[in-house]
């Protein structure tokens, strides 16, 4: 469990980082918190020619509100986002989800952008990004572009980031009228999720009537999925035990139609249904 040889650079600017990455011709890897990459290196599952350590790149550190958007630098440590009053006030879903990311020691090192770019199919933050319709900002020597979360996750550990691109910023919309919840089932506390659900529900002022519901699930496929059927079914309705049940059933039905039929998958789909009920029950005003 020792990595093979690689070159190591630790640039202090984003410009230099993307240059180094571009120069590696697709053979380079970015190192942020290292919570996934380092084990993979040690198991020799990845054998990059160069590691570009982003640890000194200040541009990736920012955490600020820009109007109706919360901008989180990709290099922000998960523990910092988890404890930030700004994040809690603007996007409570983020700390709600972060509680489930590994253990404290992992969150002390792991970064927001690292987890999203790694795109582990059972990871929490991709679900958050998808549920909030985050904008993911990527930079390369060729310029900067913004990718919608819906267009970002392509499969297990696969995103639409190009080989030479660095995820620099995660932009999350701020909803004053939303209530959010994050629920997860795992074998042990801090484990990879068997299933998890991020829920964002916006209510009409002073009522139980749902203006918009966004539900993103992980655990049933290679990427997080939006439970569109359940979301549509909830819109304009009041959140009652009946609508909760209907949403859970819609979620199961949608996943049934799209995923394979192994016993384990069926179990995970049931879990998602359960998590939909629990999350919706929690967000009820």
């Amino acid at each position, binding site marked *: *469990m*020792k*990595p*093979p*040889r690689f070159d190591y650079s630790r640039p202090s600017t984003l410009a230099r980082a993307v240059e180094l990455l571009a120069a590696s011709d697709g053979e380079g890897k970015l190192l942020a918190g290292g919570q996934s990459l380092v*084990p993979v290196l040690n*198991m*020799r599952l990845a054998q990059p020619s160069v590691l570009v350590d982003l640890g000194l790149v200040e541009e990736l550190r920012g955490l600020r509100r820009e109007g109706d958007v919360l901008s989180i630098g990709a290099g922000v440590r998960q523990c910092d986002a988890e404890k930030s009053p700004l994040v809690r006030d603007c996007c409570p879903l983020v700390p709600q989800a972060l509680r489930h990311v590994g*253990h404290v020691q992992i969150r002390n090192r792991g970064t927001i952008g690292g987890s999203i770019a790694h795109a582990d199919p059972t990871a929490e933050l991709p679900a958050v990004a998808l549920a909030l319709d985050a904008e993911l900002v990527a930079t390369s020597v060729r310029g900067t572009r913004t990718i919608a979360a819906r267009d970002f996750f392509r499969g297990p550990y696969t995103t639409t980031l190009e080989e030479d691109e660095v995820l620099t910023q995660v932009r999350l919309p701020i909803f004053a009228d939303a209530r959010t919840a994050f629920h997860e*089932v795992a*074998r*042990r*506390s*801090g*484990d*990879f999720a*068997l299933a998890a659900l991020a829920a964002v529900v916006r209510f009409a002022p002073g009522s139980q009537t749902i203006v918009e519901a966004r539900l993103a699930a992980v655990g049933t496929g290679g990427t997080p999925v939006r439970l569109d059927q359940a979301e549509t079914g909830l819109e304009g309705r009041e959140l009652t035990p009946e609508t909760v049940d209907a949403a859970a059933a819609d979620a199961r039905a949608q996943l049934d139609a799209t995923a394979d039929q192994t*016993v*384990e998958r069926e*179990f995970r789909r*049931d*879990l998602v249904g*359960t998590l939909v009920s629990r999350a919706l029950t929690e967000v009820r005003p």
Partner: protein
Amino acid sequence: MEHSLIDPSLGEAWRPRVIGVRSTRREDDAILRGEGQYVADVRLPRMVEACFVRSQLAHARLLGVPLEEARAADGVVAAYAADDLDGVAAVPDLHKGGRPVATYPLARDRVRYVGAPIAVVVAADRYAAEDAAELVVPDLEPLPVVAGMDEALAPGAELLYPDWPDNMLIDAPASNPDVAEAFAGLRSVGGSYTIQRVGGVPMETRGVVADYRNGRLTVWTSTQYPHIVRTMLHYVLGLPEGQIRVIAPDVGGGFGTKAQIYVEEYIIASLALRLRRPVRWIEDRYEHLVTAAQARDVRFQLEAAVRDDGSIQALRGQILHDLGSGEMYPPGFNPSFVAVGMLTGAYRIPHQQIGVRCVVTNKTPAGAYRGFGMPECTFALERLIDKIGGELGIDPLDVRRRMLLDPGEMPYVTASGARLDSGSHREAFERAVSEGERLTERARARWADNPDVRIGMGVATYTEGTAANYFFTSGHWTNQDSCDVRFDPDGGVTVGVGVSTTGQGLHTMVATVAAEALGVPIDNVRVVMGDTDTSPHGLGGFASRSTVVAAGAIHKAAGEVREKGARIAAHLLEAAPEDLELVEGGFHVRGTPHRGVSWGDVARAALVRTVDLPPDVEPGLEAKAVFVPPGVAHAVGEDGRLNACPTYANATHVAVVKVDVRTGIVAVVDYVAVHDCGRVINPLIVAGQVHGGVAQGIGGALYEDFGYDDLAQPQSTSFMAYLIPTASEIPPIHAEEMESPAPEIPFGVKGVGEGGIIGPPAAIAGAVEAALAEFDPPELTATPITPQDVHAIVTAAGRAS
């Protein structure tokens, strides 16, 4: 019985002075400061590192091992395959109970499991060694894979050992006419019970550093028994034992995993001899999870002949045990025989007849793991008792009550021949059950408002054989251990012992017992263990033996020293020895406390100012002693019975679980362990053993699993898949001690190392089954119990209704 424990020389009114006192462990200061010295901390000049090339296939013919490329790689010192290691013999099959496996440290013609060592590369550091090892591509011709017990026993199965007629390493049928008679007249209730493959997985992996200089080989190895390793190195490498020094430095957990002698130990030692420079191998976690000894992996077919009140007249059945490739010494089949020996536990069950069949498959070789057959047999019997209760409509707790042994029945010889010397079987049970019922009610109240939560309680009662005879396990070593007690001129004491620690607090235990026996402050006792050059010969630490055998040896040696000390003290005090009293720190004349001498005065006379000695006393103040645990047999008797242990601990465990019926997640919310390990030397250490054992047991009941696929490829090759419980999964453990002193062991002590792990699989399975009662669950007969299992039960009930 207590009077028999009192040492006459200590006076009739002996009450423990330091034994029984809760005190912190002397080991912890260094360990907690990071000042422990483990094998990986051994750094020697010119040291090189080894990396093994291991089989990627579970079963294959080995046709060749091309090493040229690796030898030419950067930083490589040498690379070897089996043919290059002449002088390294096959590991002797010292246990004659099973078919010989004749394992060569590096594979010769055939590999039988993924991870089998094929070649070893030595380089400047581990990075270079791994780079070069990657260049070695052994020429393997795949053979059909035997991935499990049923495949191994199927007609026409591929043979792992072509000269055997089948894949059975040992087949030990049993017969007992009393059992046949019982079954002829009584109702029979039976089942099949499976415990999955798990292992000790200590925090510190294995590791070996070897150095040969000035005609002597020194081997630092993370082992539970340095003297046994030394003898085995002598057998395999041919070096006289006097030329070998084996050191077990600080060891970060053993749990039985390190009570095996591994091929890597022979290989690294032989490399040091060959290269004349220090060689280091530190096992990484992948290697550990794939190649270190694994355990359990058993299926019990168990049937009871049941009387109308639910009590059992006889048990019959068979244990089927998957040994993996079988290339392990001591052999992996031993736990099944312990399971036969301990099956009836704390119950009055007159007869049994249990066959054992151990098969070889293309999995990692099986070996020892804490509990060693006892969690397995406890799981099978306790689950069966729950089933009997269900079938007869009798509360399973009452079924147990009808069979529990009472103190007046001690000593009690069980159906297998185990001679239970003492115990609190019924009282421990009643206390645990009543505490468990209270906690269950509390849990019910706490989650009463949650419609998705069910609470259940399960019980497991067991006896734990401690200081088990090792002859039955090793086929070679027996059971004695030794110590030497040596005074310094200033009154300090050095106690060398043959037991060896893996972090469980043996230094503190030895110091406490010696302080008790000699009347010196604990801090004046220096303890030496784990080094064949400085410790007296002994078998090390396993089988919950260390406390029993070390205390026995110390008692004997200290007695001699005390007697001599008293004669010297009497001379110094101009009194008669029989008028003296041993007090903390020295002797004084009974009734005249101001007329006294310290151990320092006595030792100075014995070692320095020998002119002060009485004329008939020789200089010196030390003694050596060997303790042989009493009452154990070395072989099965004509009646098929055997007592393997000098003393038996007992306990009842109760698990209270909370089951989320919609997610299938089981959480143990409270765990009760009322246990009895005889006289407690240090309650803190005993609690640590119980807590740690329970935690490991919870791991086996709910999380851990060494799974293999159809090609016997290991599936749990990292901690992502091998799920060890973390602090979050361990509930409050309500441990209560009872003390039934061992009548035949000095100080009345019994072992406690394995107890905690024995109960959880049975107690937790029972608790989950109880929690799911409304869903009419099938009997839970296998561990681990996963969320998916629970979900399946709940879903099936939903479909049925």
